[in-house]
Structures are given as C-alpha cells and as structure tokens.
C-alpha cells in the first residue's frame, strides 16, 4: 500500500526537536484502511489543558488531507466532538462546524475537503501542520 508507506514516511520524518519541545508524544495505530497518528497538544492558551489530536491517513490522504479528530487523552478509542475544545476558544479549531468539526489549517481533511475544497494539500507537511496547530493552542 503505497499511500500507507508515504504516510509512515511522513510521520517518521517528524523532527525529534519539535516532539521533545512540545511534548507531543506521537503514537501510531494501524488499521486495515488507515494509519492513525495521535499527538498530545498541551495548550498554554487553555491553562495547559491537554488535548490529543488524531490525524487519520486514508488511501486518499494526499488529495483529501489528513482527517482530523480529537480523542479522550485517557482513552484514545473515544473520539468526537466532546473531546474538541469549546468552539471559539482556539482559532482555526471549528468545533461546531457542520457537517462535522474541522480544523482550518492547511494539511487537514477539514481544510481541503470541507472548507477550501479548491485547494489541494500537495506540498503541506505534517511538521508544519502540527506546529501551526500548536501555535493556535498556545497563542494568547
């Protein structure tokens, strides 16, 4: 599965410096139809509360983007809107978006397949996406 190898290669290229600096503690879960990356985000903006983002890479991820969701930091199997920040508290994190919550940052499924469907994710990188996401969770 070439798409899966490309996803794992991208994850593998995540720089250790940024992982350590932000305490991302990445972990990977493989399913039959997706590679799921979990990253812990500590939010200075929200009193150092910890969120865990799940980025799911499916066969179409390079055209559709990395499918975003937040999960329970204590149980990664529990995902969904309940685990997203309250709508309006973090710039670009659109918890109340319909038909589903989305993150308006280049590289996500929400950005390229829901909010800005004419823009393709080619050229986006996981490292930049995560740093931008960390940035909106930290900005005051």
């Amino acid at each position: 599965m070439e798409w899966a190898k490309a996803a794992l290669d991208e994850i593998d290229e995540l720089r250790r410096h940024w992982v350590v600096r932000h305490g991302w503690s990445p972990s990977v879960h493989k399913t039959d139809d997706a590679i799921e990356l979990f990253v812990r985000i500590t939010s200075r903006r929200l009193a150092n509360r910890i969120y865990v983002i799940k980025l799911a890479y499916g066969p179409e991820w390079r055209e559709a983007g990395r499918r975003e969701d937040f999960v329970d930091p204590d149980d990664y199997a529990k995902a969904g809107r309940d685990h997203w920040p309250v709508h309006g508290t973090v710039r670009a994190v659109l918890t109340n978006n319909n038909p589903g919550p989305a993150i308006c940052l280049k590289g996500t499924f929400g950005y390229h397949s829901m909010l800005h469907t004419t823009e393709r994710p080619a050229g986006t990188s996981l490292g930049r996406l995560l740093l931008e996401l960390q940035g909106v969770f930290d900005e005051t």
Partner: protein
Amino acid sequence: MIISETPFQLRPAGPSTSKELAMPSSGPPNQVEITVITTADDLHDTFNSHQPLRVVFERALTLVGGHGQEDQFSLVFGNETLTDLQRTIGDYAQQFGWGSSVEFELVPKPVVV
C-alpha cells in the same frame, strides 16, 4: 485498540531546547555560530555580528522552501520571537547575552483563512 509508541525512528536533531549554547560574554563576539532548527534541515553557519538578523532568517527560509513567505514564519530564541530582522546579530547578542554560539527555531505562523 492497541496504541504503540512510535516504532519508527525520529530523525536526530541538535540540542533539544532552544537556549544559548555558551556563557554570555561582556560584549558580542565578531563571529557568531548560529543554528536554526526548522521543520526540514537545520541551518548551521557562522555569521558576522554586524550582519542584520534578516540574513539568517532568509537562509533558514530557503531550507523549508519558504522563499517569498516571510510573513508566514518567525525566528524564535527560547520563547522570544525576534521580530526586528533589521537589527544586527551583535545587537541582539548584546541584549540577550549570547556567547559565540546560539540556537534559534524557525516556526511557521498559523495561517488561518
């Protein structure tokens, strides 16, 4: 669900925190060894302290393919964003007490449209 800690090897980088690498001196040295950590390759080079910081910023930008995207990145020392890129390296070195070497980060700004 089985969650496995990353089985892949993360690429090694330089020092894990952004901080000065040498003790501050009484005045800025003429040459400063600068490392810039980016999301791609790192920049390691020696710069004249009379050069504006913009020279370092632009060199680092090229490593991430950010030429022409100056407004989308910041140069950061520790938790301090170095906003005035026209100031010389020596001027900043004096302000922050850098020694003969220092480490920065090139951080993308969130682009929300």
